[in-house]
């Protein structure tokens, strides 16, 4: 048979024998149980803050409920009382006008530590204190009661230990699941930037950071190229590396000089993104506004995640580079015909669907064959590069130029009618006319010129093939009239009927 003490302990053990989500939930169960068992008026739980040598009140339980309360007691103010508490595990305060008993609670909690580059899980002792008060009837605590309270305190310690281990495990599991989910989302997104946005938003949400920033460097890792950020509202920001403040640019050096920076007090983490020796960029996480500490466990998980992210970004960049090489002409850096055809079809579809205009310019360099014959192919290539450079710098971001073949280039101008296309053609003509061929022997500088034919959707044609044909016919008319100019198909249509172009270009 159980004696009374054993039975009480058993009952208390049974009451606490359940899985608690966290320390708070456990205390919300344990404190009322103690209150009822010993007919207490109030029970308190304090955390022992070693660094400040302070007992800091966390929770109070009275009558039917528990609630958060605040009270800080410095050990420096109460040395004898605390000495007794630490030595004997219990101490009765004599300063109060009613009986109050302090009971020491010690338990081990799992924590992480970084030692010489490797992560170690260790157990660190935590100390808490219970304060039990009887202020109504002022009944003093008997020695049997004090013995029993000490034993129950140990039961609470044991449960706190288990709860903290469960909590750490759950936290770890949640983090792994969250990061795994995010990696899957990232892997399935087609565009690098979209994927990165999703990742940053997800990390901010799961880890409750105020802000998350991803700084991407250039391919040499020497300069910050762009910054993608998510702020406390969840808004995404894009910034060019050039617009950063000097001190922000300095971070790059700082981050790569130290392997990983964990500044818990400042609630900031910097994590470099590296693949072998290649610098990809770095991540920053901060809780500067909310001033919440970033847990070490979070830091370790993010560090592992950063390695994975760096590899993925590097792979995605390589893929983009390969795509770029296959879509762009190496000499002129203009898109190739295949890429242009895809974009052209998309834009025609968009123009038809939303009733938008679209224009096409076909151009070639005047007397290009003669330039090649007279100055050699090197100068011919130089001329092509110079013209395409002007084209690239003179267009809007939405316009798509293309090297169609030889010296023939095409420019697609979405949302542009023939009048607007003429403005662009005139601008190109004037800028290209300023190019002089680099011939040291020439007495007179030899200027380049171009001829351009323009067709527009829907006024001249409604299909890609027809638009190309009409622009080519307009170009032919320009050539017939001496080159160095441009023409819109609609305006020269009557001349086209009389002068059908032959397959062989006259200037080649």
């Amino acid at each position, binding site marked *: 048979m159980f004696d009374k003490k054993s039975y009480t302990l058993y009952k208390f053990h049974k009451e606490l024998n359940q899985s608690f989500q966290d320390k708070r939930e456990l205390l919300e169960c344990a404190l009322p149980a103690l209150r009822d068992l010993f007919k207490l008026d109030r029970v308190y739980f304090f955390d022992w803050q070693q660094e400040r040598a302070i007992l800091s009140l966390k929770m109070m339980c009275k009558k039917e409920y528990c609630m958060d309360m605040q*009270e800080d007691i410095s050990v420096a103010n109460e040395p004898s009382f605390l000495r007794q508490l630490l030595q004997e595990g219990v101490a009765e305060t004599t300063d109060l006008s009613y009986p109050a008993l302090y009971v020491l609670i010690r338990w081990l909690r799992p924590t992480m530590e970084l030692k010489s580059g490797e992560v170690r899980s260790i157990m660190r002792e935590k100390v808490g204190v219970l304060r039990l008060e009887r202020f109504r009837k002022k009944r003093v605590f008997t020695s049997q009661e004090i013995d029993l309270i000490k034993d129950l305190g140990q039961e609470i310690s044991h449960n706190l230990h288990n709860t903290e281990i469960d909590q750490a495990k759950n936290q770890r599991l949640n983090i792994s699941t969250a990061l795994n989910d995010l990696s899957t989302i990232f892997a399935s997104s087609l565009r690098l930037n979209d994927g990165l946005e999703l990742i940053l938003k997800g990390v901010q949400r799961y880890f409750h950071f105020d802000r998350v920033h991803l700084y991407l460097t250039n391919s040499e890792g020497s300069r910050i190229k762009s910054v993608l950020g998510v702020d406390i509202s*969840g808004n995404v920001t894009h910034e060019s590396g050039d617009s950063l403040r000097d001190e922000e640019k300095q971070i790059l050096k700082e981050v790569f000089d130290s392997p990983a920076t964990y500044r818990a007090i400042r609630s900031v983490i910097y994590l470099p993104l590296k693949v072998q020796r290649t610098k990809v960029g770095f991540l920053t996480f901060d809780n500067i506004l909310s001033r919440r500490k970033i847990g070490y466990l979070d830091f370790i998980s993010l560090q592992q995640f950063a390695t994975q992210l760096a590899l993925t970004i590097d792979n995605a960049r390589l893929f983009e580079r390969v795509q770029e090489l296959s879509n762009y002409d190496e000499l002129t850096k203009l898109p190739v015909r295949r890429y242009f055809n895809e974009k052209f079809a998309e834009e025609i579809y968009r123009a038809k669907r939303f009733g938008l205009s679209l224009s096409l310019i076909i151009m070639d360099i005047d007397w290009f064959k003669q330039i090649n014959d007279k100055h050699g192919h090197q100068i011919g290539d130089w001329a092509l590069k110079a013209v395409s450079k002007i084209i690239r710098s003179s267009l809007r971001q939405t316009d798509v130029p293309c090297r169609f073949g030889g010296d023939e280039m095409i420019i697609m101008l979405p949302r542009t009618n023939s009048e607007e296309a003429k403005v662009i053609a005139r601008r190109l003509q004037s800028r290209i006319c300023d190019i002089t061929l680099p011939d040291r022997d020439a007495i007179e500088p030899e200027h380049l010129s171009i001829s351009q034919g323009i067709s527009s959707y829907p006024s001249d044609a409604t299909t890609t093939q027809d638009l190309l044909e009409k622009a080519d016919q307009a170009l032919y008319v320009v050539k017939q009239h001496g080159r160095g100019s441009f023409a819109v198909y609609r305006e020269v249509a009557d001349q086209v009927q009389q002068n059908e172009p032959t397959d062989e270009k006259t200037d080649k």
Partner: protein
Amino acid sequence: MLLWVMPDSGARTMEDYATLVSLFKKENPSVDVTVRVFTRNVLWRRVFTLKDPSHEEKPDLIQIPHYWTALLLRAGVMENLSQLDPGLSLTDCLLPLKENCYQPGTKDIYSYPWWFDLSALHYRADHLKLVSAHPEEDLKTWSGLLSICAALRETFGDVPGYYPMQNSDWRGSLSMRSALPCVWSRGLNFFTEDYAATLVGSKEFKDALRDYITLALKEYMPILRERGSLGTIVSGKASMMISRKQGIGSFSARRGVRVQTLPVPAAGEKTASYLSGMNWFISTFSQHKKDSLKFIKFCARPDIQLRYAKMIEVFPAFEEAFEPLISSTPRLQIYKEILPTAHILPNMVIMGTVMEILKRVLAMCATQIVENRFTPALLDRELDLTAKEIEFLLSIYKG
């Protein structure tokens, strides 16, 4: 509907809210109301995790200090009350409380006033009579307060556990809220007029905090001690207290104890008081927005405002209840004098963070004082660092 509230009336908070909720339930029997009480510290941490999808507890209505509005609005956790009820207005609300309800720069209401309080100096008339013929005159300045403290210490030196000042801070530590009147009294503020820079690192700000800290440093006020063991005005182990109004009524109710109230002694040229307000906001993630709004409107009703203000001894936030309360008793007449000197913290995104940083500075000072290692130079250094931190925050969040 789940309410997250702050311990308005200390250990009695749950009972007081139970009374309020039962009144609400009489009119709205179908609405279930659960109340959870969190301290400012816990609430501060919790409001930043409201967005967490794994959070099981989703509060509907949350009570916050007035100066958190801009911050939580930026964090995206506040419901636009003007959108929820276009008829909602702040017309009858006391003027100083209005600014902290809006989205800065707009008239969109995001948090709604609940109650407010004013800091003042309360003293035991019988105690002061022993050391001063004219306490009203002697307690006009901070230096006067310190002289009175010294005289009281002398007079009550043989009373065990006696302190001239009772500590009104819940934690029993140094509190920024109590220090604020010293700052404002010197004509200072946290920021320059254009809110582009902070004045926390200025000599005047440091002096103002030192004025307040002197109370603990000279052991005129206890810090970091077991609360229950400390002397109070009522027990006769303290004679004065700088605090809000709360609790003063019950002091006076005790037989033989007459508590008088005066404006906080001026540390600078003029007297200043801290107006601390409490507001409600509805969480963006609430599933019971209509019921929450109903509760907010219920709390703003003059009869409820008056009843709750009397219950927890604070001031109603609306004119219609404020006037009757202040006229109801001669003891409160002094607040007509104090209210025009009251200052409120600005509605800025970083204000809550600034208060958290300064709270940490004062907590550190308190530890240093009890361990006898506090020096003014340490405080100055901390405030210089704090100023840099605030400048950094300003650069990110533009206030």
